[in-house]
């Protein structure tokens, strides 16, 4: 199981070569910081980072 973060939207994809969030193919193994957004409508953290889709995100990529 490899967790790859998208360079564009920081979404973490598991065993995928294409980002399931934005469709980009620029995925990287080099990321750190872990953020799970469960409810993007109510979460202030999600609003601050401009996240609208629930899921797992990296805090920093590359």
């Amino acid at each position, binding site marked *: 199981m490899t967790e790859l973060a998208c360079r564009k939207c920081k979404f973490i994809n598991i065993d995928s070569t294409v980002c399931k969030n934005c469709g980009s193919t620029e995925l990287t193994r080099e990321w*750190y910081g*872990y953020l*799970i957004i469960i409810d993007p409508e109510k979460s202030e953290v999600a609003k*601050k980072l401009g996240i609208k889709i629930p899921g797992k995100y990296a805090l*920093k990529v590359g």
Partner: protein
Amino acid sequence: MSKYFAVKTTANQERVVANLMEMTVKKYRLGVYSVLAPRELKGYVIVEAEKMEDLLTAIRGLPHVKGVVKGETALAEIEHFLAPRKAAEQIKEGFKVEIVSGPFKGELAVVKRVDEAKNEITVELIEAVVPIPVTVKADHVRIVDKSEEV
């Protein structure tokens, strides 16, 4: 209005705890909105929740959870985890640094050049007889003195 709590976990199990919490929250539809596990904060996860009770239900019985830190924290206090700055951006020429990994571990050095794009810095070891420039990753040094003496 969300509240922020810190949950103590076993070191290096922060992501496991975060994933398990996500599952319980979805299962019981609790008022927990996000879970944050910054690399800088070992052994803790930060949880954004509606109220303390929701958080306590979410972590009840979970492995690797050691407890909840008393009191709550504010968004302003965790903001800096959300947008981590590159290590090189915090280092300026002339800073005294200690190298914390690699063959020069433990050596003190003075910063000569900073490459923010590559996240690398070039330093000269203080104790070396002949000053040789060494390029290291900015994450591999710790700032000792910011006085910018040249």
